[in-house]
């Protein structure tokens, strides 16, 4: 798409949207938000970049094919579920650090589970959308 406005805006929107997606990711658990929504917002950021600056440039920006995020995310989620098992608790029990971290808030295994979901969603959505849009963009 040849639009100067969109291209200029997308350069600013990409980091902004990514930041927003991280905010949504961290906001989850007790408030609306979480890994799934955050992941979708992050993929929208990259798709917008692809619309404005051609798909190849977005691929170059990402360096690795987005599909590589899928196993990483799955592994993070799986490990966060397994962590309580090593502590002698049932699978997927939420373990929390006692003191809240500044800005982020309470950190615990559910956060890591959500981070895993976040990566998987980005990986899958971008793989699908890149494949579909290869012929269109």
């Amino acid at each position, binding site marked *: 798409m040849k639009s100067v406005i969109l291209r200029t805006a997308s350069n600013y929107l990409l980091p902004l949207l990514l930041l927003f997606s991280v905010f949504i990711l961290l906001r989850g658990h007790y408030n609306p938000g979480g890994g799934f929504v955050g992941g979708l917002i992050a993929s929208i950021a990259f798709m917008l970049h692809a619309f404005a600056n051609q798909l190849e440039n977005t691929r170059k920006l990402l360096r690795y094919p987005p599909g590589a995020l*899928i*196993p990483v995310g*799955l592994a993070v989620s*799986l490990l966060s579920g*397994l962590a309580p098992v090593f502590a002698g608790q*049932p*699978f997927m029990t939420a373990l929390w650090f006692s003191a809240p971290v500044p800005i982020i808030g309470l950190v615990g295994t559910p956060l890591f589970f959500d981070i895993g979901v976040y990566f998987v969603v980005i990986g899958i959505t971008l793989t699908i959308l890149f494949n579909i849009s290869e012929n269109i963009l």
Partner: protein
Amino acid sequence: MTDNYIILPIIAHLAIAVLLIFFWRKVQIQRYISVLGSLLVLGLSIGLFIKTWRTGYLTMQAGNWQAPFGITFVSDVFSSTMVLLAGMAGLAVCIFSSVGISRHRIQYGYFPIFHFLLLGLNGAFLTGDIFNLYVWFEVIIISSFVLMTLGGKKPQIEGGIKYVTLNLLASVMFLTAVAILYGLTGSLNMADLSLKMAEIDNRGLVNVTGLLFFLGFGIKSAVFPLYFWLPSSYHTPPSAIAAIFGGLLTKVGVYALLRVFTLIFIPDEFTSTMLMAVATLTLLTGAFGAVIKRNMRMMFSYLIVCHIGYLIGGLGMYTQAALAGVIFYLIHDIIVKTNLFLVSGIIYKIRGTMNMDKLGGLYADYPKLSFLMAIVFFSLVGIPPLSGFWPKIYLFQEGLATPNAWYLVVAMIIASFVTLYVIAKMWADVFWKDRPAEEAATEDDFAPMKRYHRAVLIIPVVMLAIASLYIGFCAEHIATLSQRIAADLKDTAPYIKAVLGREIIKP
């Protein structure tokens, strides 16, 4: 008591699948990881089975949310047996796949999806929560749909569409039934439901919900009116995939039926008559369908439908001995049906066709292999003392003892004879008949293979054949196991106590 061991057969498959995705496109490494992983899961399943056999019930409250609010995982003897059988069938198919599935399909993620499928199966067997069961069914459907269409040939897509349409319909019914159940009782935990359902006065609504469950699981396990998706889709994917489908996918529907109808809905007279009637029609339509098919794998697909009838019929009779017969048959059926499709895969490699008119002369060319295959076929038929014979005794006995079940017994006998007839006819056509002259020119893909590769194809068949022989010759072990499972199914109080962790006074 919480025991994390339960989750291991599920988690191990997930971990293997994740590991396999890391090695995307590296075919050789994927083969090794997958086979080793399946071996590991089989070991874990054996461990789970032994542990469960000793203690009776293992439970785990996921996330430490106590039942009935959290998701409970329960391993009783029934579910651990199913996990064990899934582990055995999974290992056999996995070994077979490493040569039997083309490089091209492995590159597109055959092995990770295969492990996701087994993950779903193990999850469905071990969960104690009805909504969680629905989720596992979705995992199974999605991965089986990918497996079925992997490779993207036209008949595959066609079969896949039929498969996924009907299975989604079944899922919708299942989900509706879960929703009604939740509206009725406010609970999703199966043990809790079992207690709460007994107290509901509106029996009509309870029965209708039960029927919705029956429809949902019935479509998935291919019973009478809605079985047609099975024969029209199972012959399209490669044999290894058909083997895991034929051996386990319809059986997970039967497992769910057994669970739901023993724990939540106790069949009244109407329901058990309906189950027996449906079983009769399933037996007959499956058997007659098998007679007219000339494609081996289509014939096997109809035999799957036919033999589901035995399981549903036994559930309909609803006595302890009949349930023991059902469990015995289930154990025998999973092993032998998986093996049947693996055998058809080897035959396809040798002759390049599944059409019985074009096949022939296998006995002359491969006498030893034919003998191995004969064990599989005649176990299926149930020639005494092979494995299919024993459960039928239970079922016949109970059928004769149950009033008004004569039609079911007649159908079972007809189905047994038809199975014998089609298998004997297939044996004569494929193994003894001379090869049609015009077919003699087609290439044999099996003989020129490396010795090692041939062994990889044959070893899983041998493994499962040994399991079949064990079921046949050491029937008393399996009978003890089935009796114990049947007793557990009839008397659900210990199950409920294990899940809810308190004494239950049943009215």
